[in-house]
């Protein structure tokens, strides 16, 4: 299959099928409804299942139930819908269900707007729900990458038995780009005889499996949390993904930016290079785990005088950048929100003024 | 009693509901586009109008009003 021109939302739907996920539960919300529309057509063609749930709250528990019994399942939504899933996401993290959740972010807070935004960074990376947990958060910057990340997400979720979130934005969902689909994933879900409530008949042992998150005594609940923390620490060590751009140059400013925003920053780097100004960029591809070490090292480069976090939000990722730069260089934030994507020109002005 | 029949052609979206329900077939859609890109309705046969307000009742956009003409 060669390149096809496809809307991000539709490509995400197709990618899930190629990742071997034939179970999709969702509730419509702009700017991601085309995923459901696409899969409502496609799933029957490939013997898969699509169910439009009655609400995002319900949908989060549908994928909880589905993944808890050992099947691949995913959902997609956009900002307010993800908020409604907060409780369910916390539950799935506690129950260690390998669910995949796509958030095609729109402007907030409240009903906000339907245009692209990146204002759910905190919610995705620090946990919108209650309790100590983390999601693995992947942030695609193109439709091709969205496809690849969706196809990575399922095995990754299963490897760690942890929910994975794909954090895109309205632009990723709505634009069309040429995309080349990788082959269907060969991998089946990992052996889950030990934990999945798949019915005892499916297993050799006749121990019944229980998926639960209530621990009335402090000790087992703390044990769970310690176990989870060790898992998150391992993820921090092993799953960091990022892209460096122009970091070989003698840049004075280091940009940190992700997703759609990072594309604009790429243009900024290119344009300033033509003017003879060098700017480096680190683009986190995973937001959790955050590529803190890479950013710190890039910031500590001799020529680097300052770091700029460019976001389609009022300043969220900048805190993670500050956390890793640890005062070694001044860290600034520049951002727009509500749907306006900062233009290369604006960012160039900011960089020149630093 | 005399009445004045007023169509606000900028409000009108040319949906044709009023055309359909008018008992006297007074109304037609024009072929002049308005600022919003719609073809508004007009009274093609005003002489037949009995000011029954049926068109008003059915108009989703309150584009038609009928007032009394107070003769001085």
């Amino acid at each position: 299959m060669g390149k096809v021109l496809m809307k991000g939302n539709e490509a995400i739907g197709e990618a899930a099928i190629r990742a071997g996920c034939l179970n999709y539960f969702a509730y419509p919300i702009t700017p991601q409804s085309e995923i459901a529309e696409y899969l409502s057509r496609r799933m029957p063609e490939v013997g898969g299942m699509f169910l439009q749930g009655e609400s995002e709250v319900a949908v989060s528990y549908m994928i909880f139930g589905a993944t808890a019994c050992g099947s691949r399942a995913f959902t997609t939504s956009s900002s307010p819908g993800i908020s409604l899933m907060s409780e369910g996401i916390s539950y799935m993290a506690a129950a260690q269900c390998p669910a995949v959740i796509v958030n095609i972010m729109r402007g907030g807070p409240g009903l906000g707007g339907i245009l692209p935004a990146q204002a759910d960074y905190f919610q995705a990376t620090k946990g919108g729900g209650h309790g100590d947990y983390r999601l693995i958060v992947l942030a695609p910057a193109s439709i091709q990458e969205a496809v690849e990340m969706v196809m990575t997400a399922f095995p990754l979720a299963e490897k760690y038995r942890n929910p994975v979130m794909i954090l895109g934005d309205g632009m990723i969902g709505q634009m069309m780009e040429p995309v080349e689909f990788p082959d269907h994933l060969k991998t089946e879900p990992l052996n889950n005889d030990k934990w999945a409530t798949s019915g005892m008949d499916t297993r050799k042992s006749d121990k019944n499996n229980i998926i639960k998150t209530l621990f009335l005594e402090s000790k087992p609940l703390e044990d769970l949390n310690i176990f989870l923390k060790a898992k998150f620490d391992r993820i921090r060590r092993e799953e960091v993904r990022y892209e460096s751009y122009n970091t070989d140059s003698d840049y004075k400013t280091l940009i940190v930016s992700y997703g759609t925003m990072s594309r604009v920053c790429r243009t900024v780097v290119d344009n300033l290079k033509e003017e003879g100004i060098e700017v480096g960029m680190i683009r986190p591809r995973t937001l959790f785990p955050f590529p803190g070490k890479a950013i710190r090292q890039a910031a500590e480069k001799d020529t680097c005088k300052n770091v700029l976090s460019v976001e389609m939000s009022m300043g969220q990722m900048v805190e993670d950048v500050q956390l890793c730069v640890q005062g070694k260089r001044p860290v600034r934030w520049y951002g727009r929100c509500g749907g306006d994507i900062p233009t290369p020109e604006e960012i160039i002005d900011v960089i020149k003024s630093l | 009693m005399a009445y004045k029949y007023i169509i606000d052609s900028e409000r009108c979206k040319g949906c044709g509901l009023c055309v359909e329900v008018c008992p006297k077939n007074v109304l037609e859609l024009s072929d002049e586009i308005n600022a919003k890109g719609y073809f508004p309705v007009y009274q093609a046969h005003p002489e037949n109008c009995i000011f029954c307000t049926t068109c008003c009742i059915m108009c989703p956009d309150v584009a038609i009003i009928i007032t009394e003409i107070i003769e001085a």
Partner: protein
Amino acid sequence: MQNEVIFAGFGGQGVLSCGKILAHAAMEKGLEVVWTPSYGPEMRGGTAYCMVIVSDKLIGSPVTRNPHNLVAMNRPSLEKYAPMVKPGGIILINSSIISIGSGRDDVDELMIPVVDIAQNAGSARAANIVALSAFVARSKIIDFDLLRESVKEEFAKKEKLIPINMKAMDEGKKAAEN
């Protein structure tokens, strides 16, 4: 080289598919391309819009405030976007329903009665194809023949519309070359 064009008009005038056909043709040529729409309920009764960026290298920003070209299918779009077009770009105006010009003297302005031309070609619904063809013919943003293939592909499922649209393409091209 990167080239950007905005297609804009009323919902229903087919501006989104104009952009899509162009993007498709560019992709077939092996170019990088991004198509971004306006979306959501504000389209309703308002302005439909899409931007196509074509480039020979990786495309950074998927949007730009100052595109090279504009195809304006209605007056509000012309008024809104004409001031943004880069000097030297093309502004194509659907003069069938737009009575004014762009007011710019630093651009290549084409007044083309695309609806009338389409009607003559067999269907007013092909007005967008007339506009697209005229724009491509003038801008040479991609090969006209490639565009022809993309249009055919777009109508693959409604084959009987293809002849009308081919006619519309020819007429659009002709109008632009005048």
